[in-house]
C-alpha cells in the first residue's frame, strides 16, 4: 500500500543518506522522495512515498526514523487531511499539425507549455500523483521524448477553526 510520510530533519551533511539508509536496510521500497528547506533555517522537510505491505510495517518505519538523531519528527500523513503535489515536465513529439490537438488535450490538466522547438514541445504540470499520471497517459500516444518528475511534496491541512 502507498503511504506518504513527511519528516522534519536538521539540515546536516548526510542526513538524507541516513534517512534513506534506514529504509533500504528494511528493504522498504521508496516510490518518491523530495527534500527542500522549510520556513525555519537549518530545518529541511522530506516528503517520502513508500510502498509497504502492512500498516504495522509503516508504524515500525516511522518509529525507526523518529529515533534518528537528526530527525525532529516523522509522520504518516496518508490518512490525515493533507495536501500533496508534484511537478512533471514532459517533452512531447509534436509536429506542427498536431500541436493544437495536444494543446486541447492538456488544457483540462491546466498544464502549460514552457518550451517550444521544431519537432517537440515541453509542458509542465502540477498536481497529485493521480493527476500527473492521467496527464502522462493522455499525451503518451504522441510520443514522450523526455519525462522528469519531482516526486511528491506536501503537508497536512490546517484544522478548521484554528
Amino acid at each position, binding site marked *: 500500500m502507498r503511504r506518504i510520510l513527511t519528516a522534519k*530533519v*536538521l539540515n546536516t*551533511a*548526510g542526513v538524507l*543518506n*541516513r534517512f534513506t*539508509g*534506514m529504509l533500504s*536496510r528494511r528493504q522498504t521500497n521508496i516510490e518518491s522522495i523530495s527534500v527542500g528547506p522549510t520556513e525555519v533555517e537549518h530545518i529541511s522537510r522530506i516528503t517520502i512515498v513508500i510502498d509497504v505491505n502492512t500498516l*504495522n510495517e509503516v*508504524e*515500525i518505519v516511522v*518509529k*525507526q526514523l*523518529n*529515533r534518528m*538523531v*537528526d*530527525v*525532529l519528527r516523522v509522520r504518516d500523513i496518508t490518512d490525515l487531511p493533507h495536501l500533496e503535489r508534484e511537478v512533471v515536465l514532459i517533452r512531447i513529439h509534436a509536429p506542427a499539425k498536431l500541436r493544437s490537438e495536444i494543446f486541447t488535450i492538456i488544457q483540462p490538466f491546466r498544464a502549460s507549455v514552457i518550451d517550444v522547438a521544431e519537432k517537440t514541445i515541453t509542458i509542465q504540470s502540477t498536481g497529485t500523483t493521480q493527476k500527473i499520471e492521467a496527464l502522462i497517459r493522455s499525451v503518451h500516444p504522441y510520443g514522450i521524448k523526455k519525462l522528469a518528475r519531482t516526486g511528491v511534496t506536501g503537508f497536512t491541512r490546517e484544522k478548521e477553526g484554528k
Partner: protein
Amino acid sequence: MTKKLKLQEAVSGSKLLLDTVQHHGVDTIFGYPGGAVLPLYDAIYSHPINHILTRHEQGALHAAEGYAKRTGKPGVVIVTSGPGATNAITGIADAMGDSVPLIVITGQVGTPGIGKDAFQEADMLGITMPITKYNYQVRDTKDLPRVINEAFHIATTGRKGPVVIDLPKDIQAAVVTEINDPFINLPSYQPHTEPNMWQMNHMFKALSTAKKPLILVGGGVNYAKTSHELIALAEKHKIPVVASLLGLGAMPLNHPLFFGFAGMHGAYAANMALVETDFLLSIGCRFDDRLATNPADFAPNAKIAHIDIDPAEIGKIIHTDYPIVADAKKALTKMLELDFTFANTDKWRAELEDYRALHPLTYNRTEQTEIKPQRVVELVGKITDGEAIIVTDVGQHQMWAAQFYPFKEERQLITSGSLGTMGFGIPAAIGAKLADPAKQVVLFVGDGGFQMTSEELAILKVYGIDIKIIIMNNMSLGMVRQWQENFYENRHSESVFVENLQPDFVMLANAYHMDAVKLDNPLTIEQDLRDFLSHDGAILADIVISPTEHVLPMIPPGNSNSEMLGVE
C-alpha cells in the same frame, strides 16, 4: 552567529580532544596508532590520560566494550584511518547490537585529501552509518569540544550505543586560541525516559489481576543497574522472573522467584513459564529470535506489556498490549510506588517450581572418561562462589556458561549477545578487568574464538592484567558442529579442526610470558581448577572437553518455546 569562547592558551585539536574526553571522567583509552592519528598520539605522549595499546584494533574495540559493559561508562577508542578504522567495524557493530556506549575516534586523512582516494582513506561516515547510534566528521578544530560533548551525551543517554567521531589529521594538528560554543545542541534528540503514569497504572492494574504473571528481563535491566528494584517488585507481589541472555545476573540464580534463562538454550521452567503465562511484563528485552524463537506463537496465552527505552522496539517483533517507553529503573521505581492488591500466585509458582525440580538444566554428571564442559562451568561457579565476573566468547561454551554459572549480581556476565562475535572474549575480559580490578575475571572461550583474538594475550603481562582464561577445547567449532549434526545429517563441513595440528595453546601462552596448564583428567578436574583459579596472576587453562557434547535443551529455530529438544 555561533558564540565563541577564548581559550587561556593556544592548544592543538588533539589536546583539546583529550582534555574534553578526560573532563567526561574517562581515565582509560584503548587504541592503536597509525599515520592519520600521529598528532593525536603525540598529544597522548605527554597527557595524563591512560592509554592501553592492544595488538589489533578489533581488540581495542572489544576491550572498550568489556570496560563499558562492566561499568556502564563509555569505552573510548582511538584508531587510525583506513585499515585501522575498518578493523574497528566488528566491535562497533557488536556495540550497536548490544547497546553498549562507546566513543570511537577514527583518524582520517587530512581534509584536502578526503574523497580523493588518499593513502589509508576509507569513508568511515558511510561505512559506520548503519552500525552507529550517530557519527560525526569534524571539519573545524573549534567544533571539537561540542562534538565530543554531544558524542558522550548521545552514547550514554536513551538507548545507549556507539558514536564514531571521524577526525581528519589536519583538524587534530591545528592550533586554536578560541572554540565554538561547546554546549550540546541537539534539538532533535530528546530520549524519553519517564514512564507515562496513566499507561503504567492501566498496565499495573491488569498485571495485578493476572493468575499467571511473569516478568521477563533483558539487557536493559542490567544496563539501568536496577536489579535491586526488580527483586523488590518481584518479591512484593510474588511474581516469577525469567531472563534473556543479557538479562542474566539481574536476579540471582538461587532466588526462589527466578526461573532462569529463557530461549533457545534456556531452562525448561523458564520456557514453559513463557508458554503458560497469562500476563507477560517484559522489561528492557527486545524479543530477539534466540528468545522468541517463533514470534507468532510466543507467550500465546498472555497479554503483553513491554517496557523499553527505545520506542522503535515496541511492537517490532511481538504485538504489545501495554506499550511503555521508559528507562527500566524509572519504570520499576514507579511500579514499586503503586499500590494494588495482587491475585494470589501460589498455584502458578508451585507449577513452575515443579517444572524446575523435574526438568533442571542437566548433563551426564557420572561421566568419568571425559571432561564435561558443563561440569567445568559448575565447578568454576562453586570455587568462585558465584562471585567472579564471567566473560565469554561465542558458541557452545557461551551457552554452558549462561546455563550453569550461578550469577549473583547485575553486569556480572559480559558476553556478545546480539552480534554473536567470535573473538570478543579475550579483549572483553581485558577491558572488564581494567574496569574492575578488584574482581576476579574468568573468561570462557572456545578453541575457535580463542584463535581469532589471541594476539591480545601479549598485553596481559605488559599491563599486569590478571585474568583466568579457560579454553573449552573440543577441537571443533562446536556450535556449528552441533547444528550440522542436528540439521545437516552430520556433515561436518569445515567445523572440525585437524587432529593434532591445533596449536599448542600452553606453549603459545608461555610465548606471551604467561603461565598455562593443560587439563584433561576428569578425575582430578575439581582440584586442578582450584589450583588454576587460585594462581597468582594471569593464567590459561587448555581444558580438553568432550568433543561430542551438545548444548541442551534446544529449541530448533522457528519452533515455539514449548518445543524443546533434549529435555529429560
